[in-house]
């Protein structure tokens, strides 16, 4: 398999087949919480893509060059959380200084992502799946893209729902959950894909 094909396969699997929200059920909190408006959903999605890619990069390095050589794999979770939390904090500072406009639109979401299970999830799955360095980075990038995609789809649907006639008892969260379930079912169809 050529390199391009490999990347393509990785992308399709991360975005559609093993979508973090709809087939792994990670990061459900922002999926429901930040999907009321397309603008904020996009902001959150971009922040997640960024943090997931960075987290994949650094946690892979930590695992490979720190935990494995000293046989400290059992410290994986705490070491990764430490890394992700400091990373997010650092990124927040840098963005606040260098790009205030971006900070304004992303700022609220960055601290939210710090303890997001999807970010920790992608880091740990990278190790479990045995990706190499490049594979881990790309997996982080594409997983974030998959998250952003479903977040945007959800936000679009919910913006339309605001204007449509929904029975009183189903307004707000109940209909959002029903839609989330329908989307998960739809994404189940991708699991038949084979390369």
């Amino acid at each position, binding site marked *: 398999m050529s390199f391009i094909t490999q990347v393509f396969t990785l992308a399709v699997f991360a975005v559609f087949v093993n979508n973090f929200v709809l087939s792994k059920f990670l990061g459900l909190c922002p999926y429901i919480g930040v999907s009321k408006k397309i603008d904020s959903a996009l902001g959150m999605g971009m922040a997640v893509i960024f943090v997931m890619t960075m987290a994949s990069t650094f946690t892979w390095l930590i695992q490979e060059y720190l935990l494995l050589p000293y046989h400290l794999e059992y*410290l994986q979770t*705490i*070491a990764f959380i*430490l*890394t992700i939390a*400091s990373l997010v904090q*650092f990124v927040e500072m840098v963005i606040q*200084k260098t790009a205030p406009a971006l900070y304004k639109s992303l700022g609220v979401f960055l601290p939210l992502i710090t303890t997001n299970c999807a970010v920790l999830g992608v880091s740990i799955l990278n190790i479990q799946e045995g990706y190499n360095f490049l594979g881990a980075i790309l997996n982080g990038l594409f997983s974030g893209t998959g998250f952003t995609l479903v977040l945007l789809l959800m936000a679009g649907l919910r913006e339309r729902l605001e204007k449509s006639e929904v029975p009183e008892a189903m307004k707000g969260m109940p209909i959002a959950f029903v839609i989330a379930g329908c989307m998960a079912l739809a994404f189940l169809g991708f699991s038949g894909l084979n390369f």
Partner: protein
Amino acid sequence: MIGAIIILGALGLLYGLGLAVASKKFHVEIDPKIEAITEALPSANCGACGYPGCAAYAEAIVMHNEELNKCAPGGAAVVKEIAAIMGKEAVAADKKVAVIKCQSGGKNNTIFRYEYQGVTTCKAAILINNGPNLCSWGCLGYNDCASACKFDAISIDENGMRIIDKEKCTGCVACAKACPRNLIEIVSAKKRVHILCSSHDKGAESRKVCGNKTACIGCSMCVKKCPKAAIEMKDNLAVLNYDLCIMCGICADVCPTGAIFDPLKEIRAKKRAEAKLKAEAAAKAAEEK
């Protein structure tokens, strides 16, 4: 074991140092006033000021010269505090209170179409053929407003009328949202004259169905007599524009059904009677001369 402690400790130290250096290097000046005002605000994040939270409102005050008196839960004390931080004069917000625009008093005074024995809330009662009372605009009388009030400001007197305690009412709009017939309006506490009917029925109809016989029958007398043109007829109902109202009480005098409430009505009537007597006496005296 020791290796684990050293490695994790070193990792933590490294991150800590890195963040410390970064926080110095990427330090951003933030106006300390914003933080001070955020602390002065009640942190309820209720959104009554029109901003997404207390912090956003604080930022708007400092950066965009937003008015200081928009915090409803904080009240005058918070306005004073913010004014001290900003070095501006405190202008207290206009206190607002709820007014229930129906005098029928719900189930006690109202004529019923059927006997309702369901769940005793207005929201449930209105679901069955638009409520049991004959007037399809008026108070249902199951006290959704009183149970929605967090400040215990709505009480019910012996006639089944809902009395709003103007001291306790904060104008939080909770009761107005709870009322399924939208009878409650939040108005400035300074305004004393109110049109206490919400019926858009035609005159004869609303006169017939009103449990208290104080319906607005749409006769337009108040509209004609109002010196400030503050009253307007909207679909068989007189609607008062509080911005224009000077509380002269003329509308309450001319209203044939008593739908308009004026707390000074009796005093005004007494004064008028006295003036009439005086005029008569003067006329008599003139005749005798």
